[in-house]
């Protein structure tokens, strides 16, 4: 409780700090001259200095107009960033409301101050700046971070939903508002059909991704996630295309002159604009992927190439009046796969972070501008229009969601439940897009522009605050409603097992690749595209990912061969006693739960996680990190116990090493480890040889260029283990021998030697081991020059 209060107080501190900052801003506004633009000011400055030779040199001067625009823009961005810091300090807040809320509040605050000080806000937002500078980063970021595989699997549904949904919404809202405008009482008679349609198209631009962070921890299934993401991705593009077409119509004729031919031309143009944009994007994506193939020596310009080519695709498409948004999206999607493999690790990270940063800046600016416009004199309030806009937005969204998904479900293998559809409906939160389009309406064609802007603002505020804040509890309510009781430990474990089983069977039946088109594309990709677009030589950074993969597989094999047991509990084991069932105390249950969550590997997440404002590590990275950390823990423990040569001593006394569980208690577990011998019979006997083959094939299944590298440790391992299998003493069972050989192989497999496991009464003498080890070291040294970056790995112990 006190921690929460402390957090609340510190966030209050941040708010106070913000207010102070803004007051300083306001005071600096008042110091500057109020009505001149920066350009005039700079001219004046230079002119003044040359035309006043008699003026004394003043020691201290203030020239605000020179820096006004960049200064204010920077202050705005900084302000928003500080607000975000404060927002995230109180860690429960991001789950309560989307960040758009925060940005709106900050914008309104800034707007209030600017209004209060009668200052003319800098002309940050006009049509060209928005479309040329502010919009591309946002779209690029959403295209780049889109998970491609689920997207393409659901592409039919996504296109159907996003495309038709936008159209239905736009025309539905436009037409309904037109009928409302026809009613004399509201005084809206001068708004023509075309203007209403235009308004409908811009108000239907939703930004549902903004709310994703709010219900992220609720288990949103992948399909739902993909639909929301896909809609956000394509929605902006479609709205802008529609907007432009309708503006062209408005400019072109009066309403009465528009013939059916024009409408058909409009539809054709819609299609051409969309497809043309995508085509441009794909072409530019391939070009940039190809170029990154050659940049290994100057990796510092890799991010530059990526960004410039994406931006170029946008501009090239815009030149031809094609859809730049769709172009840049397609470019990001296309080049992502190849670029990720070609660029160095640091470039990759740079690209990701820079993209997030740019899009964050753009969005912040737009929202702040929205806030600034809110508090100002350029409003026109009309109760009827605004209320009906709100109502119709919700109604038409509901209509489009439920009808389109009803149709869509007929063709899907995983139909969307009503609950999913409701969530999609409710996540129709407006964002920066619709406001920008409204703001940029040309006043000459739209005399009632202010009304539109006001209505857009109201809808945006309403949806962001009301829907954004309530969607979290709603989703949790919908989700939790079915499973009210807390599950017992047994159930949890079984559920986990079944999740893993399901995931495994999915992989076996190749669920994700049962589309022929996708298979064909993959083949084409492998045979032609990859050869052209991906670098031949191995970049050093791939070592890390290779290492991670090997680590993970190794950990899993360890589990399977039964090396792992643990006594996380200090209680000694009594196998033979038959006891009645004993109730576990709640503390025991809780501690078991804690151990469960700490010690179990995560089931491969079918649910994705995307946060627009933050980069979270991927699940596989997390899992790899988990393994690494546990490894380090156990190694540290083994070091602490004074073992320098991990496998030197005869190990009858010591039994199993606990590689996956940090707290190990060898004494009590010794008995039951003997008692419970690994009986993974199915896996071991034929498994030994195939293990090496599978290791080979696994290496081959990574990209071809990694094969060179992977082969080398595998070969040396192969040689190493052959030596061991010859020199090991005869054992009681073939299984044990094979098992031990396998374990030894595993032992040698990691790219660093320090694995502190011992096995049951080892018969391998020190000389044998060190002989093998030195052989392996010798071979390894030979191959060392292949990967210099290996050395940090080798030296960890």
């Amino acid at each position, binding site marked *: 409780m006190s921690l929460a209060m402390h957090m609340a107080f510190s966030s209050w501190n941040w708010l106070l700090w913000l207010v102070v900052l803004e007051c300083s801003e306001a005071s600096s506004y008042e110091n500057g001259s109020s009505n001149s633009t920066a350009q005039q000011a700079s001219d004046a400055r230079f002119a003044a200095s040359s035309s006043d030779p008699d003026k004394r040199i003043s020691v201290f001067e203030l020239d605000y107009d020179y820096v006004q625009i960049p200064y204010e823009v920077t202050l705005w961005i900084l302000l928003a960033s500080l607000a975000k810091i404060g927002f995230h300090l109180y860690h429960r807040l991001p789950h309560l409301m989307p960040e758009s809320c925060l940005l709106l509040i900050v914008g309104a605050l800034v707007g209030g101050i600017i209004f209060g000080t009668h200052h003319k806000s800098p002309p940050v937002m006009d049509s060209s700046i928005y479309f040329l500078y502010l919009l591309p980063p946002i779209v690029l970021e959403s295209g780049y971070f889109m998970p491609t595989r689920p997207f393409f699997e659901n592409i039919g549904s996504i296109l159907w939903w996003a495309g038709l949904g936008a159209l239905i919404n736009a025309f539905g809202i436009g037409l309904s508002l037109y009928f409302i405008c026809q009613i004399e009482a509201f005084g809206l008679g001068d708004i023509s059909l075309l203007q209403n349609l235009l308004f409908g198209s811009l108000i239907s631009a939703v930004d549902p991704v903004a709310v994703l962070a709010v219900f992220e921890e609720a288990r949103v299934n992948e399909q739902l996630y993909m639909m929301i993401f896909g809609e956000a991705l394509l929605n902006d593009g479609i709205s802008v295309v529609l907007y432009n077409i309708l503006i062209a119509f408005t400019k072109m004729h009066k309403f009465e002159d528009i013939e059916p031919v024009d409408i058909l031309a409009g539809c054709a143009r819609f299609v051409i604009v969309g497809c043309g944009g995508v085509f441009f994007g794909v072409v530019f994506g391939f070009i940039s992927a190809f170029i990154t193939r050659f940049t290994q020596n100057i990796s510092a310009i890799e991010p530059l190439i990526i960004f410039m080519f994406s931006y170029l695709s946008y501009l090239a498409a815009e030149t031809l009046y094609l859809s730049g948004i769709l172009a840049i999206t397609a470019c990001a999607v296309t080049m992502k796969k190849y670029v990720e493999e070609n660029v160095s690790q640091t470039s990759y990270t740079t690209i990701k972070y820079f993209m997030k940063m740019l899009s964050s800046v753009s969005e912040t600016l737009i929202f702040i501008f929205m806030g600034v416009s809110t508090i100002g004199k350029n409003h026109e309030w009309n109760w009827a229009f605004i209320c009906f806009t709100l109502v119709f937005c919700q109604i038409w969204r509901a209509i489009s969601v439920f009808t389109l998904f009803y149709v869509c479900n007929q063709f899907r293998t995983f139909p969307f439940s009503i609950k999913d559809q409701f969530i999609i409906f409710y996540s129709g939160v407006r964002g920066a897009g619709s406001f920008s389009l409204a703001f940029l309406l040309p006043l000459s064609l739209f005399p009632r522009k202010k009304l539109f802007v006001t209505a857009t603002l109201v809808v945006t505020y309403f949806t962001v605050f009301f829907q954004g804040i309530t969607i979290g509890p709603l989703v949790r309510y919908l989700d939790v409603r079915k499973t009210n009781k807390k599950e017992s430990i047994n159930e949890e474990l079984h559920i986990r097992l079944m999740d893993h*089983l399901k*995931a*495994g069977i999915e992989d*076996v039946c190749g669920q994700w690749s049962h589309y022929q088109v996708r298979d064909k594309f993959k083949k084409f990709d492998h045979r032609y595209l990859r050869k052209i677009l991906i670098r031949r030589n191995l970049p050093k950074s791939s070592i890390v990912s290779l290492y991670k993969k090997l680590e993970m597989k190794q950990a899993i094999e360890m589990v399977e061969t*039964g090396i792992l047991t643990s006594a996380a509990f200090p209680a000694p*084991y009594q196998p033979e006693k038959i006891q009645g069932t004993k109730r576990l105390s709640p503390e025991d249950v809780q501690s078991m739960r804690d151990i469960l969550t700490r010690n*179990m590997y995560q089931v491969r997440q079918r649910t994705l996680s995307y946060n627009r404002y933050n980069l979270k590590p991927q699940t596989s990275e997390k899992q790899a990190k988990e393994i690494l950390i546990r490894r380090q823990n156990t190694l540290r423990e083994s070091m602490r116990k004074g073992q320098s040569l991990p496998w030197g001593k005869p190990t009858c006394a010591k039994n199993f090493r606990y590689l996956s569980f940090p707290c190990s208690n060898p004494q009590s577990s010794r008995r039951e480890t003997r008692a419970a011998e690994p009986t*993974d019979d199915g896996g071991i006997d034929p498994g030994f040889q195939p293990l090496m083959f599978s290791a080979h094939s696994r290496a081959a299944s990574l990209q071809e260029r990694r094969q060179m590298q992977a082969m080398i440790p595998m070969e040396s391992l192969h040689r190493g283990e052959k030596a061991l299998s010859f020199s090991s003493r005869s054992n009681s069972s073939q299984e044990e021998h094979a098992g031990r050989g396998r374990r030894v192989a595993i032992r040698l497999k990691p790219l660093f030697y320090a694995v502190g496991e011992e096995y049951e009464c080892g018969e391998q003498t020190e000389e044998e081991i060190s002989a093998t080890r030195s052989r392996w070291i010798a071979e390894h040294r030979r191959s060392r020059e292949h990967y210099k970056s290996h050395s940090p790995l080798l030296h960890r112990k």
Partner: protein
Amino acid sequence: MGAAHSASEEVRELEGKTGFSSDQIEQLHRRFTQLSGDQPTIRKENFNNIPDLELNPIRSKIVRAFFDNRNLRKGPSGLAEEINFEDFLTIMSYFRPIDTTLGEEQVELSRKEKLKFLFHMYDSDSDGRITLEEYRNVKWWRSCFLETLTSRRSQLGPSQMEP
């Protein structure tokens, strides 16, 4: 013409045995040939070609389940060396959603089949019982089971597994 005819007869036969539709059988056949490398049978090694499966902690149990004679309905115990397409479909049919239109009895039967599949996964020595040992042998949650099992000893037979 004759070959196509007999192929579709086979498909129909398989449909009847396993309950998959002909489209699904086609897809699974494609997957089968992909996994087996155009051979008529699959062995355990072929499952190593599936990259995502490598990361699954219970991979070996899953692979083993494919070759388990009890799941293949070929015997009370033991493992087959290789399986053909029909066996593959048999195993896959355990994972079909239960067709609720078939009637109460069929639904119950399907449920029992699925439960038996799970039971066979636990019961590694095929004696029809899950002992404490076997329960614990589902290796990777061994530690977590420890305390649970010392307090609740359980020995389940197949008859007790029925809902």
